[in-house]
């Protein structure tokens, strides 16, 4: 599976707004480049990133070739309860990767 690096505070106060970061290894081949022999290199990108907090979707992004390689996204959410935050990336050529982090909410 592609290497992913996610950052979620280990603990937070109830209702506190927390920053979440997600970084994943992926070349994000745009589909607009040509090889040295002139052939079009086919597109191969991550197209969707979804983040769920105890099963409920809290963030979703549609990605395009304009997202830089090794996609990085940071966003915010409210720490509502203790549990697991799950990150899921899907894309071309059946690409799929998941990562998760635990959070403890007082």
């Amino acid at each position, binding site marked *: 599976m592609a290497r992913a690096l996610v950052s979620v505070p280990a603990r937070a106060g109830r209702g506190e707004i927390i920053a979440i970061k997600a970084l994943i290894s992926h070349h994000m081949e745009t589909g607009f480049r040509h090889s040295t022999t002139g052939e079009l290199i086919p597109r191969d990108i991550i197209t969707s990133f979804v983040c769920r907090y105890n099963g409920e979707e809290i*963030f979703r*992004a549609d990605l395009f070739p304009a*997202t*830089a390689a090794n996609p990085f*996204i940071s966003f915010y959410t409210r720490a509502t309860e203790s549990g697991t935050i799950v990150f899921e990336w899907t894309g071309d050529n059946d690409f799929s990767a998941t990562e998760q982090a635990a959070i403890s909410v007082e």
Partner: protein
Amino acid sequence: MSSDPASATRRRILKAIAALTVGTSAVQIVRPTGATPAAMQAAIRTVVGENQINRGKVTLDIPPLVENGNTVACSVAVDSPMTAADYVRAIHIFNEKNPQPNVIGVHLGPRAGRARVSTRIRLADTQRVIAIAELSDGSFWSDSVDVVITLGACLEDS
């Protein structure tokens, strides 16, 4: 806006497309028609429909001069209380000179707490980048930045 028949037909077609997408925040993937500001406008209209796009509330933060167009830091923030009654539903970023006008589309909800997203994007050339936010009341707000892309020296294939 001109009033010649071809343009009127185009507006009717766009209205029809918009009618299919207004009220949703799904982003339609626009077939790459080439790197033009017109393609960007079409991509924007696919998301916004015939709604007015207001200036304000949105701050698009991209360095005006970037060291490398392959990886450009890009942040968008929308001034919103992010309550159940008043929140940002989605933020879409568009460009005018890449082969494709869409950059990213993010979907938020009141749980976000703060309507602020950061990512890294690719910009093929010096160009304008536009961020459009869709609020829960159905209104659209935007901001734009003109970015200058420089090419580095001592590259692999130079």
